[in-house]
């Protein structure tokens, strides 16, 4: 079974002066697929995902989204393409000068011609789904880090984009809220066929939501595959990372071990059909 490629990363190299952050990364992300990128701090994960939405320009290599080379687009073409992308930032990136509600309404006001009433309904619905509707009139400085994270997620989801990038969406959240966020990522894919790229250190989350996992070490993809494949991959760095996550690998095996790689692929295909239907 072949999944249509949504995002293709070809030989991506990124250098800052003498420092090389990414050494020729190759990745293909299928439409409506969730790719989880794992790796230690400083591995180049954030740099990689920033290239996907052209926040960084590659030193060498290409990023194709629906066949379009994003690094080669003009400012105006890029602005048009970005309407189909969303990003949840690690540091929330909420606008300090606006209320929580205005933060979530901002992309709707900028990119759509919806009436203020429709904007209010959509923004408040999203805030409610994330459980932060009660903070709508507060400013980001008046809410906790966990709440700010959820508002950032609400803002990214409110436009229902085709490609969503999550930079550590569950860091700083309590376990219950983390699982709610996982469910939301799943729901976005199931309901709208969203392609998701998730950077996380939360291994429970990674194995819960991933169709595929890619492990990045020192700017190189050292392993990629389904969660079941990653669990048994013959790479000491990967095995060490899973062990060091503080959770017994056997639990992961139990978690995904019920499904073989083929069964997981079939589950993904089923979701795609549901999304398409």
């Amino acid at each position, binding site marked *: 079974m072949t999944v249509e490629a949504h995002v293709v990363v070809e030989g991506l190299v990124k250098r800052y002066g003498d420092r090389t952050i990414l050494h020729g990364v190759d990745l293909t992300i299928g439409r409506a697929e969730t790719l989880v990128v794992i790796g230690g701090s400083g591995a180049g994960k954030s740099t990689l995902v920033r290239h996907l939405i052209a926040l960084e320009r590659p030193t060498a290599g290409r990023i194709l989204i629906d066949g379009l080379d994003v690094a080669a687009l003009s400012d105006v073409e890029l602005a048009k393409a*970005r309407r189909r992308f969303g990003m949840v930032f690690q540091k929330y990136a909420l606008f300090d000068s606006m209320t929580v509600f205005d933060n979530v309404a901002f992309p709707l006001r900028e*990119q759509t011609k919806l009436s203020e009433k429709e904007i209010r309904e959509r923004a408040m619905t999203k805030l409610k789904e994330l459980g932060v509707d009660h903070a709508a009139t507060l400013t980001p400085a008046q809410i906790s880090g966990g709440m700010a994270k959820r508002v950032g997620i609400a803002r990214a989801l409110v436009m229902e984009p085709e490609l969503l990038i999550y930079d550590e969406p569950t860091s700083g959240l309590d376990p219950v809220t983390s699982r709610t966020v996982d469910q939301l990522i799943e729901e976005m894919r199931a309901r709208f066929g969203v392609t998701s790229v998730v950077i996380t250190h939360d291994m429970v989350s990674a194995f819960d939501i991933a169709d595929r996992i890619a492990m990045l070490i020192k700017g190189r993809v050292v392993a990629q595959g389904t969660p079941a494949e990653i669990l048994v991959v013959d790479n000491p760095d990967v095995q060490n990372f899973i062990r060091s996550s503080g959770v017994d690998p056997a639990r992961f095996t139990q978690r995904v071990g019920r499904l073989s790689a083929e069964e997981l692929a079939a589950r993904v295909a089923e979701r795609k059909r549901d999304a398409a239907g």
Partner: protein
Amino acid sequence: MSDDSPDSAQPSLLASVVAPVKTLLEEIGVLGDLAFRAVMWTVRPPYRFQLVIAQMEFVGVQSTFLVGLVGLFTGMVFAVQTVYGFRRFSAENMVGGVVALTLSREMAPVLTAIMVAARAGSGMAAELGNMRSSEQIDALETMAVNPVQYLIVPRMIAGIVMIPVLTLVFFLVGLGGAWLVGVKWLSLDPGIFFDRIKTMLAEADLRQGLLKSVVFGFAVTLIACRHGFFASGGAVGVGQATTRAVVWSVVGVFVLDYIITSMLTQV
């Protein structure tokens, strides 16, 4: 072998001369590029009038008291100094005209721009620097909003419009201060004081002052925005960017002042 030999010192000497020149040229390139992008995005829709008005309030209205206060004391000091100096050759009747000329051509545009750089320029650099370090500028880009258009254009328009207005405030309040000291306290003749202003102050003097203030408005906001917009290195980086914004704005004002003055003044 000693490290102080001429052979080992030569490359470092050359490097120490070349490096600042290279940095200066790079800085001019960055400023030129940012100015070009800002001008391009000014004429492209959407037009963000609300943001422009908010910035005009920040740059102009909130600076009025400060600029007026500095203008008042500048006029007062000038009156004392010119009366003291001109009395030596019985020319104190010239005080009104001399103060008006100095204020209109130099003191009002230069000191106003410096006050705005210190108050509003530092605020702009700190705000944009914080937005950069907390990824808010990246967030704007991912939401298909051009950050130059959204953040820099309103600030530059506000600077270009409001610094001339503040310069006019500085000039009028400064004249008031000079009148207070010269006429009320040092007993100059009020008729002669105003007559000398009318005869010595030409329209061209006011035009030069206003032209300078427009250029300074553009330069101060551009330099402040440049340092904030490209800030890096967290809280320390934002602090350094704010300092650089104020220092280079003030240096820029003096350099531009000399260039404009030498172009427009026939000696």
